Every structure is written in structure tokens, then in C-alpha cells.
């Protein structure tokens, strides 16, 4: 039986094997990220409850596990089953399409928000090797440019949602979003240029290897990191920059007219974007899957499964820290005014990023 499978695998040839492994990796990543999204929503609710001195979700219980003594009530109190209930609710709720919307765009906008968020994850190396497989779906030489290109496509979902809804508040949300995203994309793009001046490569995997040798880039380019993380908040529409959906003035902005699964797609898109932004920060500034001690900064050899798994674990742990920061800041800060947002983007960050590039270039030139 096993030999038959091995024969079948060998018969695929290099192209077939590549396709098979890519498919496996895509499926695994998709499953992992969807679980992450579900539980970061729970984390958001629990952390916000903690900050506001509330309890948070603590009611959903599964019939069998809920009746195990001690463990059952503990898990229920943690709200571990809440994402399941939320998911079922999203699917079963009535999918209402208002009569005045532009139907085609109304249907396509949630998908356009959701898909780019996932495409970004395709180039992110989330581990070194597992067996003989490199733990990245697409090892592109222009990885970072691909990422920025795809992120810039994400804005269409929100703009089209605002346009398709054909009513005041969503439209204002869409307009705001397009201006905000473009403004902060520029700061974000300029912020990472020092990273590439230092490393000299655009491939994300090689950036990690460079950091394993020379130390994390956060120590070389701290200003870049500050600009990047603030721009990431603006790009993912999180407080203090959630102007496109600001509940208090625009009802819910671009997703006012959406319900059930279409709304859930916007929601999942936002959290996937947060995951992608966290992963980018880990890769660019915090050494990716490496740790500077315990021999964990070298790629795993084909036989070292444990080390390969440890690398994935390190990456996920680093990413979770950033997810908590994302959530924490949302509940600690008030919202910016729109003119303040534009002022910060264009008149503070843009010159700062340019000066940062200049200084890095001059320092590198003097040292060479």
C-alpha cells in the first residue's frame, strides 16, 4: 500500500510534486489562518472586556465537553466555543440585499476585500524547512513588491462596497478609505526602503537569513519600524485610523448595508489583513522564524522535523504578540480626525521616511 503510494508520488515528476506540495501548503495555510481569524475575534472580545472591566463571551457550551467537571466550565468561561457559534450564525442569517444597491458590485465587493488579504500570505516564509519542503508557498524574488502590490488592490473592495451600497454613509466611508489607503501606502512603501538598502535583496526569505547573521533589523532601522506599524494600522482600518467605518459618525461606513456572510467576509478580511501585517513586521524587523540562541537561527535540515516545527512555532508566537498589540491599541486610543490623519501621513511620515532613507544610505556609503 505504502509502496504503491510512493510509486504514485515518484510518477508525478518534479512539476507534479511541486503542484501537490503547493496545494497541501495552501490548504494548510488557509485552514490555519481561518482558525486564527476566528480566535482573534474571540481574543478581541475578551481583551476589550478585560480593558473595560467586563466579562466578555462566556456562555456558549458544547453538549458533551461542557459537562466534564472543571475543564468544561473553564473552557466555556474562556469563550472557546464562541467562534463556532459566530460562524454558524453568519452562515444562517438572512442575506438581505437592499433594493437600491448596485447588485453586481454589491456582490463582488466582499470577495475583493477578502482575496487580496489572503494573497499576501502566499509570499510570507512562516518557517524554514519541514522535511524537504520550504515553508513558503511562493518564494518570489520580488516578494516585498508583490506584497505591496496586492495590499494596494485591497482598497478596491472597500471603495466598491461604498459605491455599490448607493447610500450616503457607505459612500463617504468608501471615499475616505481610498484617500487614506493611498496616503499611507506611500509612507509604508518608503519606510521599508532602508531595510532593502541594508539587506540588498527583495526576497523575504533572504531578509530573514540576513537577520539571522547580523541581528534583527529593528536595531538597524527603528524609524522604519515605527512608520511601518503606524501605517499598518491605517492600512488595516483599525483604530485609531478606522475613519472608513467610524461607527459614531458614519453608522458603520462601507459595510452599513451588508448582512450575514457578506458582512462576515469584510470582517474576516480585516482580521486576515491584521495577520498579514503582523507577519510582515515579524519578517522584516523581528527575524522571522529565527531566534538568536539555541541554534534556532539556522534553517532546519531535511531530517530535523522538530527544529522545523519549532521555527513555525516561533513565527506564530511572534505574530501573536503583534496581534495582541493591534487589539490592545484599538481599545486604548480615541479616533483621529480626518485632517489629523492626512496631516500625519503627508506632512510628518512622508518627510520622515525620506530623511530615514537618506540617512541610511549615507551611513551605508560611509561604512562601505
Amino acid at each position, binding site marked *: 500500500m505504502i509502496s504503491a503510494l510512493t510509486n504514485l508520488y515518484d510518477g508525478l515528476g518534479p512539476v507534479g510534486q511541486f503542484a501537490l506540495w503547493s496545494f497541501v501548503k495552501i490548504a494548510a495555510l488557509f485552514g490555519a489562518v481561518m482558525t486564527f481569524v476566528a480566535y482573534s475575534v474571540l481574543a478581541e472580545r475578551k481583551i476589550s472586556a478585560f480593558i473595560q472591566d467586563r466579562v466578555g463571551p462566556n456562555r456558549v457550551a458544547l453538549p458533551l465537553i461542557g459537562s466534564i467537571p472543571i475543564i468544561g466550565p473553564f473552557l466555556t468561561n474562556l469563550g472557546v466555543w464562541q467562534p463556532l457559534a459566530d460562524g454558524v450564525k453568519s452562515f444562517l442569517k438572512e442575506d438581505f440585499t437592499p433594493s437600491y444597491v448596485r447588485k453586481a458590485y454589491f456582490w463582488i465587493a466582499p470577495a475583493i476585500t477578502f482575496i487580496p488579504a489572503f494573497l499576501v500570505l502566499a509570499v510570507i516564509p512562516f518557517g524554514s524547512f519541514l522535511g524537504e519542503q520550504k515553508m513558503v508557498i511562493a518564494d518570489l524574488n520580488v516578494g516585498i513588491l508583490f506584497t505591496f*502590490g496586492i495590499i494596494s*488592490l485591497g482598497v478596491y473592495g472597500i471603495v466598491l462596497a461604498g459605491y455599490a451600497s448607493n447610500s450616503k454613509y457607505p459612500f463617504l466611508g468608501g471615499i475616505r478609505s481610498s484617500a487614506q489607503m493611498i496616503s499611507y*501606502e506611500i509612507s509604508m512603501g518608503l519606510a521599508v526602503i532602508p531595510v532593502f538598502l541594508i539587506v540588498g535583496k527583495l526576497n523575504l526569505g533572504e531578509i530573514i537569513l540576513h537577520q539571522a547573521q547580523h541581528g534583527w533589523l529593528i536595531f538597524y532601522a527603528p524609524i522604519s519600524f515605527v512608520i511601518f506599524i503606524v501605517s499598518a494600522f491605517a492600512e488595516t482600518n483599525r483604530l485609531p485610523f478606522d475613519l472608513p467605518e467610524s461607527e459614531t459618525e458614519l453608522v458603520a461606513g462601507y459595510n452599513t448595508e451588508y448582512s450575514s456572510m457578506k458582512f462576515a467576509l469584510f470582517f474576516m478580511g480585516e482580521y486576515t489583513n491584521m495577520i498579514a501585517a503582523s507577519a510582515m513586521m515579524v519578517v522584516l524587523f523581528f527575524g522571522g522564524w529565527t531566534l538568536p540562541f539555541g541554534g534556532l537561527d539556522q534553517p532546519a535540515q531535511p531530517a530535523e522535523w522538530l527544529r522545523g516545527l519549532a521555527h513555525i512555532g516561533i513565527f506564530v508566537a511572534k505574530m501573536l504578540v503583534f496581534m495582541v498589540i493591534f487589539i490592545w491599541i484599538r481599545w486604548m486610543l480615541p479616533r483621529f480626525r480626518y485632517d489629523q490623519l492626512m496631516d500625519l501621513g503627508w506632512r510628518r511620515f512622508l518627510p520622515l521616511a525620506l530623511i530615514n532613507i537618506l540617512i541610511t544610505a549615507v551611513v551605508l556609503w560611509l561604512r562601505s
Partner: protein
Amino acid sequence: MQTQDIFFYVFALLTVICAVMVVANPLSRNPVTSAMFLVLTIVCMAGLFVLLHAFFLAAVQILVYAGAVMVLFLFVIMLLDLKEEERRKVKIVGAGLGTISVGAVAFLLFRIILTSSKGAANAAPQLEGSTSSLGTLLFSKYVLPFEILSLLLLVAMVGVILLSKKDLK
């Protein structure tokens, strides 16, 4: 026929279809739809660049044109009065002139393709190269055109700021 050829024909066909839909969409005269088809055209062209192994060009094509320029297009279109634009009929004179100019350009292109030598057809694609070699080329061999272009962009930018200022002293 290799896989790459199949991809080429798929992307080329999609590019042409989307490009036609930008200007002559039979179902809708909505400018937003035209803009969205233009975005699709740009994305398909990026696919063609990838087939030529010009990954940098493909990424920049999506980043700059699809991601920034077209978002601004959309931004402006959404602020215009679209109702009037949708009601406007296709004028026969305009359509005729358009057909003539497209025909002229197509004729010129065909002539060039037919008369040019076919020696380079089987050679390996020359566009391949790392981002750094592209940068080196831009700042050594082509530095003058590059700087002139950036000057042109600067002039355009200053012009826009001047035009958008209401009270000129």
C-alpha cells in the same frame, strides 16, 4: 504547445477582452465599470510580464497602475455626476473617428511586425534580470532620460498644485 504558451494566449485574450470592455461595454455605460475593466486589463498585462520573467515590472505594474493610479481614477469618477454620463448616446462621428484611428495604429503595427526580422523570436527572453541590475542600468546608461522624466513629473505636480489653489496671489 507548452503550458507557458497556453498561459500567454489566456492572458492575451483576457487583456484584449477587458480592453474592449473599457471603451465599448454593451451592457453598461457606467464609467465605474469602465475603470474596473481597465484595472483588469492592467492586471492581465502584469500576467504577461510574469510570463516574460519580468517579475519586477509585473509587480510595479500592479503596485503603481492598478493599486494607485486607478484608485485615484475611481476616486474622481465617483465624485462626478455620473447620471448624465450614463445617459449620453454614442455619437456616430466619434465612433467613426475612433475606428479610423484604431485601424491606422493597427495597420502600422502589422506593417512593423511583418517587415521586422524574425531572428529574435526564438532567443531567450532578455527582460529577465534582478531588480538591482535594473536600478544600475537606470542610473548609468539611461540616467539622462530618467532624470528628464522625473523633471517632467515634478512639473506636472507643481502644475496640479497651482491649478487646485483657489486664491492665487
